[in-house]
């Protein structure tokens, strides 16, 4: 344990108070931001390095996710990639967030993190600085930071797209704070792209949903081959708030994604759906957490994984129902389809229930494709790869169907593209 901490310390060389101050100065951070970074650094020294024996890290080696070049000045900024149509923001290493006109005029307040002094009160509410080792690194050394705020009662149906570009040659630490004030509604599609071998992303997204407000958040991870990363997303829901989170995991070499909803206000409802399709030698590790902190809260999770080649998936799904959450309901389902003999999927449900008068259930399966299904489809002329593709598509279909219609097509296209590729590589 001690040895590991020293290893990690060495790996993090450069993350000391002096260099952190210098980093902030270079970026032009204000005093409040710098102070927050230093508090995070202090927390980081107190947060133990993840222990492989502890459940959440049983399947992924944290050392593989350690950043190597923290606080280094970025290289020349990459050529500005085009922003998609509709409201969009692009976060790139070494650049200010870029907004398109639609984002500027959509009515959401979109600004660098800490530009509004109010951010200081809100940041860390859903993902505290000491949430975990990687979250503390992000808090101390985050690069591009962005606040997205839907003012009280304001509603925007069109999704705001946030494109976070990884970098094959550098560490990227994005940090998003999404705020829906009371009665507001917004949709954020957070898309992680780019990067490649040698790059590491450590991202944190906090979503604060006020009373009676609604947030839909789609997290798409489509890094280039070889990229590694750790993404944490937490939504905190106040009274009667609603959260719909969708995640799709496709890319990178090693990816750990931790998603969750904290149901802090009475009557809050959180639904998460996920699809992950690792292939080759990819390693995708997902956690979800639904923590019920208030009475009559509701949560639902449907997470589907199809593993091809020699890839590996781990899913840990935690439900915690606290003492003050009577009358709550929680459901969690994780199904895994193994597409080859060497594919592997682990699924670990963790249920912690501290009050009676709740309804909580879960289901978990891992199985290869049913050979009878393949024979049936092949007897109708479908080749073996086409039959497999159809079965996998069917496997994820009921999950994709839970996506609101306006968000579904894009994920369906990504899934279909991945399945077409699986069909070629076999």
């Amino acid at each position, binding site marked *: 344990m001690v040895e590991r901490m020293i290893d990690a310390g060495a790996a993090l060389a450069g993350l000391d108070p002096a260099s952190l101050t210098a980093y902030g100065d270079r970026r032009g951070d204000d005093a409040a931001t710098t102070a927050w970074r230093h508090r995070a650094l202090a927390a980081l020294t107190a947060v133990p390095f993840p222990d492989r024996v502890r459940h959440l890290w049983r399947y992924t080696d944290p050392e593989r996710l350690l950043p190597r070049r923290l606080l280094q000045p970025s290289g020349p900024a990459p050529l500005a990639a085009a922003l998609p149509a509709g409201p969009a923001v692009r976060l790139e290493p070494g650049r200010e967030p870029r907004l398109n006109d639609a984002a500027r005029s959509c009515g959401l307040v979109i600004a660098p993190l800490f530009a509004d002094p109010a951010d200081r009160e809100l940041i860390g509410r859903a993902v505290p600085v000491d949430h975990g080792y990687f979250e503390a690194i992000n808090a101390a050394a985050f690069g591009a930071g962005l606040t997205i705020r839907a003012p009280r009662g304001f509603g925007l149906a069109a999704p705001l797209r946030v494109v976070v570009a990884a970098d094959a040659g550098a560490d990227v630490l994005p940090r998003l704070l999404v705020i829906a004030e009371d009665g507001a509604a917004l949709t954020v599609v957070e898309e992680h792209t780019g990067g490649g071998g040698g790059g590491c992303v450590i991202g944190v997204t906090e979503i604060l949903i006020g009373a009676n407000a609604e947030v839909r958040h789609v997290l798409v991870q489509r890094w280039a081959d070889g990229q590694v990363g750790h993404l944490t997303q937490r939504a905190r829901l106040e009274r009667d708030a609603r959260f719909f989170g969708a995640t799709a995991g496709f890319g990178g070499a090693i990816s750990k994604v931790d998603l969750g909803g904290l149901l802090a206000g009475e009557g809050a409802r959180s639904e998460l759906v996920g699809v992950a399709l690792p292939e080759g030698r990819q390693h995708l590790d997902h956690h979800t957490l639904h923590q019920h902190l208030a009475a009559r809260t509701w949560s639902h999770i449907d997470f589907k994984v199809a593993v091809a080649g020699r890839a590996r998936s781990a899913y840990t799904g935690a439900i915690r129902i606290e003492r003050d959450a009577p009358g709550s309901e929680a459901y969690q389902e994780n199904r895994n389809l193994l597409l080859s003999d060497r594919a592997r999927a682990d699924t670990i449900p963790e249920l912690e229930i501290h009050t009676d008068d709740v309804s909580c259930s879960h289901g978990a399966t891992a199985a290869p494709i049913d050979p009878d*299904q393949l024979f049936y*489809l092949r*007897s109708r002329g479908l080749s073996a790869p086409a039959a497999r593709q159809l079965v996998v598509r069917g496997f994820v279909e009921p999950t994709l169907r839970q996506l609101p219609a306006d968000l579904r097509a894009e994920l369906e296209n990504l899934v279909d593209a991945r399945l077409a590729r699986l069909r070629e590589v076999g």
Partner: protein
Amino acid sequence: MNLPTNERLLSCRDLRVFVDDKEIVKGVDLEIRTGEKHALMGPNGSGKSTLAAALMGHPAYRVEGEILLRGEPIAGLSPDERARRGLFLGFQYPVAVPGVTVASFLRAALAARLGREVPVREFRQKMQAAFDVLEVPKNFTGRYLNDGFSGGEKKRLEVMQMLLLEPAVALLDETDSGLDIDALKIVSAGVNLAARAEMGLLLVTHYQRILDYVQPDIVHVFMGGRIVRTAGPELARELETRGYDWLADPAPTATARG
């Protein structure tokens, strides 16, 4: 389909089917020609489904002997290649594929059979024509394939697929079982339509019920992995009154009853 009349569509010679080392089908000779309706009748467990699945190329079976589809050997081909060449198996227990809609499945199957993309219009027309024969309700297309279907719905969808895909030869395994009388009539109409379209048909059954609606040209009795008798439609009526037992013995007259 333009088949020369009286072409040999499906032939097999001394066909043997093994599961592991157990021989289940023990030397079958069969010849089905254009537009012929064959009934293969036999008690439960005699190996009828094994024969049908092996003809379709089920990977669980080891097969010895010859299988010719329109004169070409197919015993070494995959199930999908056999299907594309015009062999069809209506399953005794159609398999559910959750999440895959009937429409998307049928379109993929038709494209595979025709060896080309099928434009939506053409697909819809062909699908509707086949649905009409089987009196399948429109909302079928959006349902997941065989998922939560009643027995009768599954069997109707099997026969519907046969009409859509226009195979040269269809093997229908117990397509009559689990049907009420109305469904049986509808399914039989589909089968008769296929025969008029010159398909070769092998109706596998252990009841004679369907034969009230579909008149077979040739009836085979299948017992213990072998065809023990082949005759005209009168054999089916004889089986109805006498059962199978009198055929089980190598010297049938010795044990013949009533």
